[in-house]
């Protein structure tokens, strides 16, 4: 049992839908350092909305989130920005700044936050790109890179800020199986080698089956939390059964 304080604690969390109405099913969750938590479920279940609320990106309709010991509901703009350095969030599609090349995208947040000299930041960026096995060119604009390369650069620019948690929304979006395998290995290393808590909203059940320490299942009719694939796949809930059966078909 891990005695350390959890990095993330959510109590009866109910995020908002795009139209402002709250999701019906409250979610309670605790996440420790080094854990991989996957948010799964059919479309419309609210994976992105719950992930954004857990990351304190959006204000929820109800419940509370304590992120790195801070009550997310009581953060002012400066505190929220300071929190973002420790709780990284990669949006779906991993959008990078289109007007600068790959390497500048990686170094820019660290330069902005004055985390070192230009040489130190550049050296740290190269080290991270090596850690991530980045296969692409660094001198190209993001538009000339493939989705796998863009994702790795987006992760690298987050890692430049030395976060303790990383939230990723559909990171396996638009990549082929070989890239998915490499991305899965990266996420494992983030949790295993760097000790980050990694929360991923995904449809990739192959990854969830192999690596998830916790699974948050989100469905329009029900939401629940499972300690890994075994209890999840053994669940008798009809929503879970339907979801898994549909995936197998």
């Amino acid at each position, binding site marked *: 049992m891990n005695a350390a304080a959890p990095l993330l604690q959510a109590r009866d969390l109910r995020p908002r839908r795009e139209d402002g109405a709250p999701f019906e099913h409250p979610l309670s969750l605790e996440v420790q350092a080094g854990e991989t938590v996957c948010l799964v479920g059919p479309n419309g279940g609210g994976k992105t909305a719950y992930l954004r609320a857990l990351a304190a*990106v959006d204000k929820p309709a109800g419940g509370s989130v304590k992120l790195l010991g801070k009550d997310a509901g009581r953060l002012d703009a400066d505190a929220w*920005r*300071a*929190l*973002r*350095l420790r709780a*990284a*969030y990669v*949006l*779906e*599609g*991993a*959008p*990078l*700044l*289109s*007007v600068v090349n790959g390497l500048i995208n990686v170094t*820019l*947040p660290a*330069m*902005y*936050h*004055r985390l070192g000299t*230009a040489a130190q930041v550049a050296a740290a960026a190269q080290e991270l790109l090596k850690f991530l096995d980045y296969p692409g060119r660094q001198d190209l604009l993001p538009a000339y890179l493939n989705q796998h390369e863009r994702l790795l650069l*987006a992760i690298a*620019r*987050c890692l430049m*800020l030395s976060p303790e948690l990383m939230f990723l929304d559909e990171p396996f979006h638009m990549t082929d199986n070989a890239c998915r395998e490499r991305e899965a290995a990266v996420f494992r290393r983030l949790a295993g080698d760097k000790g980050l808590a990694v929360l991923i909203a995904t449809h990739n059940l192959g990854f969830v089956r192999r690596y998830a320490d916790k699974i948050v299942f989100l469905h329009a009719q029900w939401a629940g939390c499972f300690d890994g694939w075994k209890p999840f796949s053994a669940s008798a809930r009809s929503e879970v059964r339907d979801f898994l059966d549909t995936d197998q078909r």
Partner: protein
Amino acid sequence: MAEAQAARGSFIGWLGRGLIDLSMYIVDLTVFVLRAFRDWARRGRIFNRATLQNVYSQVIFTGLDALPLIIFLGLAVGLSITSQLLKLGQTIGSEQDVGALLVDIVGDELSSLLTAIVLIGRSGSAIAVDLGGMNLRGEVEGLELLGINVNEFFVTPRIIGAAISQFVLAVFFAGIALFGGVFIMALFGLEHASLHQMKRMAEDVDPQAIAVFALKNILFGITIAGTACYHGFRVRRSPTELPQQTQRAIVMSLVLVFLIDGLLAVVS
């Protein structure tokens, strides 16, 4: 009778609504620009390496890249308007009147306004499209989620870059339009066009006029870039919002630039 009254009422109502909308818009825009400067000032150091790069880029794009066009337009105005005024001066006034007229109309008004119109067309539209596109693609939110203050990173450097560029380009424009025009007409042997006339024009420029010229052009630059950023950030989800907001940025910049010009002409 009743119909005429109703038409008059609806016209006054339309005018009133328009004025209220414009006033609210100006308040909203002013708050947006002031917030951007507040966020920029709160960071301690005036610029960091990331934002300073954005100021350089904006000065290069808005200022340096527009310089050939400004030189061309300055010469064109020199050839057309300065020369016309010089010819008019030959018939209606003294050499001193002509000099003062040239400084006021060409040096102060036309150079500032035409430079602003060039900047609105080139940079205002480009900033609105650029920021709007970044917003659509999630690039802006991606940076916000890295703790980057987008006001400080995107807005203030663009406003500062545009204000510097507008001022410098207007100075270039005024110099080329005035001195270029007089020089060309002197070549053609016009009576009032001479090196002496250039000296007289330089003497007609008083420090207060220079201060108002500087203030006006800096305000124009702030307005053009501020309006473009404001509308760029109003692009949310749909690509169709991009041309709509760009068009609004251009129209509102023009309205505000002429409004500021008129107000300054009245108070100065």
